[in-house]
């Protein structure tokens, strides 16, 4: 079971990844590839127990937008480590489209990217098996200041000109 960090602690993962051969139990909470998610919702499956999985490499988030008001969780999968497109997806969902629910980074993320992922709006992180959760959590608060606006309450440079 992959380690899941949320709210700066290890938490139980109450979502399963669907879209494969094995059918999850009927009452499970299931993360589905975006196209499957849209099909499921359109077919009337329960919106509170279905979540879309975006791929960082498919940078366009617009197919998800009509469903964003009822999505409990959006997962972004990093197929390769350090695909910057996933960082942009997160900012767009949070800042441009006002998404407030859980935004989970999954796939090949490394602990030393967590500060930036968090600043872009991710609030949940599924770690690779070889990563250490304590180290990972520490990285989220690696910097106490920033030059840019972003998620979280860091002191940043707007303070200088009374923003």
């Amino acid at each position: 079971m992959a380690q899941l960090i949320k709210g700066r602690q290890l938490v139980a993962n109450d979502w399963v990844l669907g879209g494969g051969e094995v059918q999850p139990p009927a009452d499970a909470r299931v993360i589905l590839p975006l196209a499957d998610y849209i099909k499921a919702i359109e077919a009337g499956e329960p919106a509170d127990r279905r979540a879309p999985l975006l791929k960082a490499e498919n940078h366009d988030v617009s197919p998800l937008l009509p469903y964003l008001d009822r999505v409990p969780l959006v997962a972004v999968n990093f197929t390769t480590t350090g695909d910057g497109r996933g960082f942009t997806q997160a900012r767009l969902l949070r800042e441009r489209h006002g998404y407030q629910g859980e935004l989970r980074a999954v796939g090949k993320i490394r602990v030393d990217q967590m500060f930036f992922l968090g600043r872009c709006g991710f609030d949940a992180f599924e770690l690779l098996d070889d990563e250490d959760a304590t180290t990972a959590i520490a990285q989220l608060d690696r910097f106490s200041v920033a030059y840019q606006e972003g998620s979280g309450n860091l002191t940043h440079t707007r303070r200088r000109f009374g923003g």
Partner: protein
Amino acid sequence: MYRYDDIDATLVAERVAQFRDQTRRFLEGKLSEDEFRPLRLRNGLYIQRHAPMLRIAVPYGLLSTRQLRMLGHIARKYDRGYGHFTTRQNMQFNWPELKNVPDILADLASVEMHSIQTSGNCIRNTTADHFAGIAPDEIDDPRPYCEIIRQWSTLHPEFSYLPRKFKIAVTGAPADRAASEVHDIGLHLKRDANGQIGFEVLVGGGLGRTPILGKMIREFLPREHLLSYLEAILRVYNQEGRRDNIHKARIKILVKAKGVEVFRDLVEAEWALIREAEPDLKLTDAEVDRIRGFFKPPPYEKLADINVTQGQSADFQAWYRYNTRAHKVPGYRAVVVSLKAHGVPPGDITAEQMDAVADLADRVSSGEVRTTHDQNLVLGEVRQIDLIETWQALKALNLATPNIGTLTDMICCPGLDFCSLANAGSLGIAKQIQERFGDFDYLYDLGHIEIKMSGCMNACGHHHVGHIGILGVDKHGEEWYQITLGGSASTHSALGEVIGPSVAKDVVAETISRILDVYVAQRESGEEFLETVRRLGVEPFAEKVYGTAH
């Protein structure tokens, strides 16, 4: 110059702590080499041929004398007593030990310096005109905008994993002294019809294996929108730039593939949304003025221009002519400190020279030293009455070689001697050229010629934009050199044209000599080398090079 406040200081200190922790985890085996690589690169640390190489940021080429002394200290304590200035106005040390790098970064932080984003697929050090603030032709000082860009781009959460590296240059004068047309983004300060300050925006320039000049995508960007527009360009690039092929990943390839009009439309559409959504990116006059306040000129004395060369030695007159430049304030002059002494690798400087230049700058200039993209230093605020003393001091340091703008004022990468990417040596070729063309009367007769040399097609030595470009290539394990003519990184930049097959290592200087013979024979009165090449094309030069060699 810009001074850190508690936010800057905290950020840099926390960066040092972060890298100390990452280095510890690597040395303890908790991070693999593959995992550590992108982390160390973002702190300017390469693993090179002999040892790690550490690249330290010199933001837009401006150093306080205190910072220069610290670089000297680092050279002595952690390296072999010297450093190397690069074409991005930064400093490289070639022999640090990995385990010492966190301590080096801590020493740098103590003088408000860092090595953040001097490598890796992120936004690199923003470069500028090395005569910023003092050039007579300047419209506005580019350095405050560079500092604003430095802050915006430092640890930018969204743009720290770009498809490839990203370089921005800013110029403040009609004459381009920052090679802005060969940058991912080139910003040219200008005034609109109402006298408002803004930028002409170029995008998609770059060298490397696909050299391309930047294309203008916005004729006038009001300065208040600088950051929102940069954010729009970077976001489009981050989303659309190729990641499947490292050689096709720079923004120049994206702009070329989409066409500049389509790319511009994407940027403008994104910009409109960003301006709405991120009002904090808008630069207020108060914030620009606050940053500009850091770059106020020193208090100038009321002086008149004087004729300092009258009655002086020919040596001093040559130095004055080649190594000093006009200053916007009467009675002052800018001095170029030549790091191109014959027999010394271009851009290299010893720790003792760093200390002595710092002392000299405190005595005769403003307590600041500028680094240039052509690998020299500048003392920006020298009173004309102090020029003789300045010359004598620099001469004693072997830093007054009167060759700025001449053939031996070469740009040169470290090449095969240090760099693990290189195909061929460049320092040995530089030496060969210095030895062959050691006669100053001949150099002066040839006039303004820029040689730029790279040891591989990554083009750190900017060979594409040399009047004479030299590119090291590997042919069956031997070092050969391809020659281009007619390149330029000044206003209206141009890419050089290859004259023919590459030449063997031992005949590079001889080849250049033949090229120069054609120039001397065919030049018209007052015509510079580049003008002659442009008028004649490369054929007559190629004939002379290959005609008798075949």
